[in-house]
């Protein structure tokens, strides 16, 4: 029985938790300037959702200024779990970074809280600039490759920041948002892992079209008290981007 329980705990911990922020378009054209944003807490490859509480913060970062989208957030029930959505109408050319800072989630199997500060980056009307600017989140992935209008098969590069500074040798989990029902050969294939170099820079190839998530996991310097005990926080710097197939 003990062995069974232990293996169950190990099996669940193998599934990587990802906060998501995904938009219905990552390159916005004038014919449709309204962007729909969805927020989920999920295991992206297995498509196993978890309940997501209303986030602490959700917004859009444009030209150095944050605008909260929290008042517009609406809950959406999906597979009997709570997810969230909002929308935003773009009125001028530029790069818009949609971000979310969720309520920390307590993971009893790992004895820690998980807080994934997550963003996705959208270009409006071919503005072409600003995608490499940090939003200013405590943990953040800043792209070195343009994070939209990417083809499947491209190599993507980015830098991991914690409190604005590069994180040497950061470990980054990579997952595909698997809406196609793809099967991994075994569990080890579900989450890909890369390490950043001494400057916090990592490179990943993106073999399929669709959404890809990158989560750099950092031990936060803050702890959270829960039922009289202090727990560590896994702070995730998470970035989502979409690749397209060449037709």
């Amino acid at each position, binding site marked *: 029985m003990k062995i069974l329980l232990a293996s169950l705990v190990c099996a669940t911990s193998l599934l990587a938790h990802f906060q998501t922020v995904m938009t219905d378009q990552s390159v916005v054209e004038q014919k449709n300037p309204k962007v729909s944003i969805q927020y989920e807490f999920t295991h992206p490859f297995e498509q196993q959702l978890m309940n997501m509480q209303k986030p602490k913060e959700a917004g859009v970062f444009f030209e150095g200024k944050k605008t909260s989208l929290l008042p517009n957030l609406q809950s959406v029930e999906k597979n009997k779990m709570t997810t969230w959505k909002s929308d935003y109408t773009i009125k001028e050319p530029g790069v818009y970074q949609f971000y979310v800072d969720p309520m920390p989630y307590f993971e009893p199997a790992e004895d820690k809280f998980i807080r994934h500060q997550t963003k996705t980056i959208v270009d409006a*009307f071919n503005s072409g600039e600003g995608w490499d600017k940090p939003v200013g989140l405590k943990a953040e992935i800043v792209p070195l490759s343009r994070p939209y209008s990417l083809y499947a098969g491209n190599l993507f590069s980015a830098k991991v920041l914690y409190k604005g500074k590069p994180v040497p040798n950061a470990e980054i989990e990579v997952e595909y948002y698997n809406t196609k029902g793809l099967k991994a050969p075994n569990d080890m294939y579900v989450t890909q892992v890369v390490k950043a170099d001494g400057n916090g820079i990592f490179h990943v190839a993106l073999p399929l079209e669709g959404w890809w998530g990158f989560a750099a996991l950092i031990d936060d310097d803050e702890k959270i008290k829960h039922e009289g005990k202090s727990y560590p926080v896994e702070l995730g710097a998470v970035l989502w981007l979409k690749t397209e197939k060449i037709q």
Partner: protein
Amino acid sequence: MIVRFLLIAFFSISALYAHKINLFAYDEEGSLYVQSYFTKSAPCKQCTILLQDSQDKELARFQTDDEGKASLKLPAPHFKITVEGGMGHQATLDYEAKSHTKEELKTLPADMPLSKVALGLAIIVFFFGALFWIKRPARR
């Protein structure tokens, strides 16, 4: 000297070819606002903007300022916008105005379909009819 000139000309052309010209337009309260740029921080300065109707008849021709922006009164509800950035660079946009042109504003009530007017009148007649019926003197 000639080599230097050729080199400068070559690099200028290369830089221009590397950038696609973009055109962004919106309208508000009867005015059209146009912005043209290669990238967000590289505006198409003093570039010619041409507005044409569906028969390619010129409706307006004007220039952007140093920020790549320009505005004018909406000349029609639907037209084509072309920006010419020199060196054969141009971008075109089929534009459908979302706010009314100045001429349309004068005739705004005519925009209301007759069916809606008739329905409104019917509701008013019904309301006062009902009121009259309720308040009529009781028969003895």
